[in-house]
């Protein structure tokens, strides 16, 4: 026990029970020992403790380590954003306001080939860790410093995807062969963009060893550069033991003039009987038995799912109609859609036809469906519309939505249609000035009727992130005209003003 420990032990139990022994072994303190011994016991223990404490603190040096310092980051290839943009970032990331605007700000930074100030990098990377949707927006603004930082923290591993853009094919192949799951996903996506055939072959080579979830996720990557060359592999995936893989394969094959489509077109032609009577169509469906060879041969549900016979039949019929060539139907689409919508199974058929129209890029079909069956729009498959919209230009999209929103309906129908249209439109990040103007006019009408205040506020706030900022004056007018008990436009106006200030920085630069 050293001198200090002796003093503590004595102090702990009390100096009456265990008087302290002041015995300095260190020569530097030795001279004080005699002085202390002439004092009272309390003074002895406290004086000795004070001496040792100060002596030890003064003599205490820094710790020494053999650990290597981290490698130094390369100087960044991107320029740092302006002070104004730094303020905008601070508002979003440090004050947690206008978080919905972050993707737009990051996109503007990426377009201007700018990066964020260093102290914002950890905040962004933390956000990306929690919000996968943000990752694609974050990666381009990380710069060399951000990528270096990612390598220091395994929790930000997703940021390594940013590396791939600047490395060669050999590195991509290396990452595909040896990387972690997220690294391999990023590598495959990049490889597919550069070499669709080679990347598919790489996937085919490792297909049997991959887990079911990975197989489905990586099959989705084939959407990029999808072509008939992928058909053979997709036919293999169509009979995979995993249902998500089979669904993904069917989703891709539906987009191609494939043998799969031909098989199902032939099957649909055999099942459907369209009778033309007095300018009306009557659709009759001759379904084969559950275990008929036609289902298996066509690749529809190679393993029957559990469920009632009716559900199984509807699912199989839908799958056939979604995949079959739309040209098997009579050419008078207006009449056809009107007739189908009046049949008992009409909703199922129209829903399937809407998806087929999306896959086959048939605007004539979409317009006929919207015109003659607007109330069934909300039951259409959103994904099919997204697919359709993603491949059409802004003019086509606007025509579609203008038609949809301008169709005369009952108020109930309008409310539903508006909500469903917004759900689809909001899949696009930004709207044109014309579409924005139309949306806020309809929103004003909608907000006057909708009684769920919080829901409308939320919807209004969501819309504001998509609107073109040219509608700001119109919104300000609405703010003034709106009744106090109705929707409050001030949040929308504030958000658009913030977006305008963000965009102004990049407009001037």
């Amino acid at each position, binding site marked *: 026990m050293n001198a200090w420990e002796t003093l503590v032990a004595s102090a702990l*139990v009390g100096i009456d029970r265990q008087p302290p022994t002041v015995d300095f072994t260190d020569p530097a303190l030795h001279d004080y020992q005699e002085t202390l011994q002439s004092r009272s016991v309390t003074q002895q223990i406290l*004086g000795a*403790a004070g001496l040792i404490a100060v002596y030890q603190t*003064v003599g205490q040096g820094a710790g020494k380590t053999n*650990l290597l310092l981290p490698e*130094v980051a390369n100087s960044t290839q991107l320029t740092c954003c302006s002070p104004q943009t730094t303020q905008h970032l601070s508002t979003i990331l440090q*004050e947690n306001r206008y978080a919905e605007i972050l993707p737009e700000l990051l996109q503007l930074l990426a377009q201007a080939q700018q990066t964020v100030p260093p102290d914002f990098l*950890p905040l962004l990377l933390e956000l990306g860790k929690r919000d996968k949707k943000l990752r694609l927006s974050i990666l381009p603004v990380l710069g060399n410093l951000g990528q270096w930082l990612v390598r220091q923290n395994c929790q930000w591993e997703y940021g390594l995807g940013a590396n791939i853009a600047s490395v060669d094919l050999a590195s991509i192949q290396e990452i595909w062969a040896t990387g972690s799951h997220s690294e391999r996903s990023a590598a495959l996506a990049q490889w597919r963009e550069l070499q669709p055939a080679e990347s598919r072959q790489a996937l085919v080579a490792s297909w049997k060893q991959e887990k079911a979830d990975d197989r489905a996720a990586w099959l989705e990557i084939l959407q990029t550069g999808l072509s008939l060359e992928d058909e053979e592999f997709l036919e293999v995936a169509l009979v995979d033991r995993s249902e998500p893989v089979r669904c993904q394969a069917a989703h891709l094959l539906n987009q191609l003039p494939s043998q799969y489509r031909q098989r199902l077109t032939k099957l649909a032609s055999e099942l459907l009987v369209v009778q033309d009577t007095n300018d009306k169509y009557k659709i009759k469906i001759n379904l084969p038995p559950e275990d008929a060879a036609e289902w298996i041969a066509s690749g529809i549900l190679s393993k029957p799912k559990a469920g009632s016979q009716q559900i199984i039949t509807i699912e199989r019929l839908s799958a056939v109609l979604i995949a079959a060539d739309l040209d098997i139907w009579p050419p008078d689409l207006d009449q056809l859609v009107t007739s189908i919508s009046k049949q008992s199974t009409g909703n199922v058929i129209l829903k399937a036809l809407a998806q087929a129209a999306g896959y086959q890029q048939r605007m004539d079909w979409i317009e006929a469906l919207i015109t003659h069956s607007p109330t069934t729009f909300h039951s259409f498959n959103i994904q099919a519309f997204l697919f359709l919209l993603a491949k059409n230009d802004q003019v086509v999209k606007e025509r579609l939505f203008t038609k949809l929103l301008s169709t005369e309906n009952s108020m109930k129908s309008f409310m539903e249609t508006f909500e469903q249209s917004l759900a689809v439109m909001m899949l696009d990040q930004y709207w044109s000035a014309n579409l924005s103007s139309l949306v806020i006019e309809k929103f004003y009408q909608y907000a006057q009727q909708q009684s769920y205040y919080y829901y409308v506020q939320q919807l209004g706030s969501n819309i504001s992130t998509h609107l073109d900022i040219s509608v700001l004056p119109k919104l300000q007018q609405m703010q003034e005209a709106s009744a106090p008990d109705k929707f409050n436009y001030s949040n929308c106006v504030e958000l658009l003003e913030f977006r305008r200030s963000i965009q102004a920085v990049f407009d001037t630069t």
Partner: protein
Amino acid sequence: MTLVWSSEQILALAPDAGSVKNGKALATASKWQNLGGTDKVLWGECQGSGKNPYQAQIDLSEPAFRCSCPSRKFPCKHGLGLFLLNASQAQLFTQDTPPAWVQEWLDKRSQTAEKKEEKQKAPVDLVAQAKRQQKRSDKVSAGIADLELWLQDLLSRGLADAQSQPYGFWDGMAARLVDAQAPGLARRVRDLTGIANSGQANWASELLMALSKIHLIIQGYQRLDGLEPGMAAEVRSQIGWTTSQDELMGLYHQGAAATQQDNWLVMGKSLTEEAVSNLQTQRVWLRGQTSGKLGLILNFAPRNQPLDVSWVPGVLVPAELVFFPGSYALRAIATSREDAQQPQAIHGDESIVMAIDRYQQALIQNPWLDRFPLLIKVTPVRHDGQWSVQDFQGNYLPLELVDLRGWQLLAMSGGESIDLMGEWDGQVLRPLGLWRDGNFWQVNSGEVWS
């Protein structure tokens, strides 16, 4: 070089998070009219909810703020908004002749400064002062005698017994010391409660160390006449015998106080809050560019009340400091100061050993020193979830900071050495600011230590 205020530095002046948010919202051109500015002052008119616009103005020499709005916050959102707007869009400040309302304020400030100086130069009633001091000495002596008995009793019964005592045991002694006009000792006694109930394995060792420091103060007080003047002043200061700013300025005018003229680098600013008294203490750490001398500007205010915002971290302030008496004089006030400037280059200690050596030299002169400013060239590193800084020789110091701040520190460094400033308490370093490539970054922005 004229100082260019960064948004970071301006926002550090905000009294609270709400002011930061509102100030930023006002930092847009559309909210302002009649914007103008010179090297010394900025002004502008902001339309608020009232009929007339609010007139906001900033004296850049400190900086000092004034606004015609009714807000009690200082600076208000208009002052911050105006300052931020100037930092981001200086070209908007087109007027260069201060209007009458700005000139009036500047004149008034100048007159107030002159009056203050005259008051400080006024003769002191020495007889009355000596009488007051004697009365207090008597009270303090009685309080210290009481404390000695209390310590003797505590050690006789043992620390284990003291640990089981209620809070009143410690607070009662602290309250008697407050009555005896020994608030410095009272604070140390009150802190003992926290150590005894810390739950740490080494609580007894820490408690004995804290008691021994109190004992050192008592011993010093009992030998006050035999101590050299600096140490005597330090002991009095530790007891709580404060020297007011007016008294210090009186000593200054008599030529009896230590002074230093220099360009002072504002190295960092920290804020602590005492739960019991609700008192905020702001520490501003300075370092003389030429003399290398260290300075500490202390500022106290009740919670939610404004603190002095004129010392902005990261800038260089040409000023004369006068130091409060002490064995290692750190605390100071400015007798005169000029406009803040952008520092040209920052030179932290090249190694941790050099920096710690400075601390040890200071500790030899003042064994009660609880915080010491270090400015060192180091690289932040993270091992086993703990942050530390490491120098080129492999020496390291542990850091006290939240994990995200550590990552920000690392991002700012990019793996290279940075000039890091922090408060060292002998155990951990609390980072307050850093420089890299001439840019300053406040590490602890908005954080309050308890």
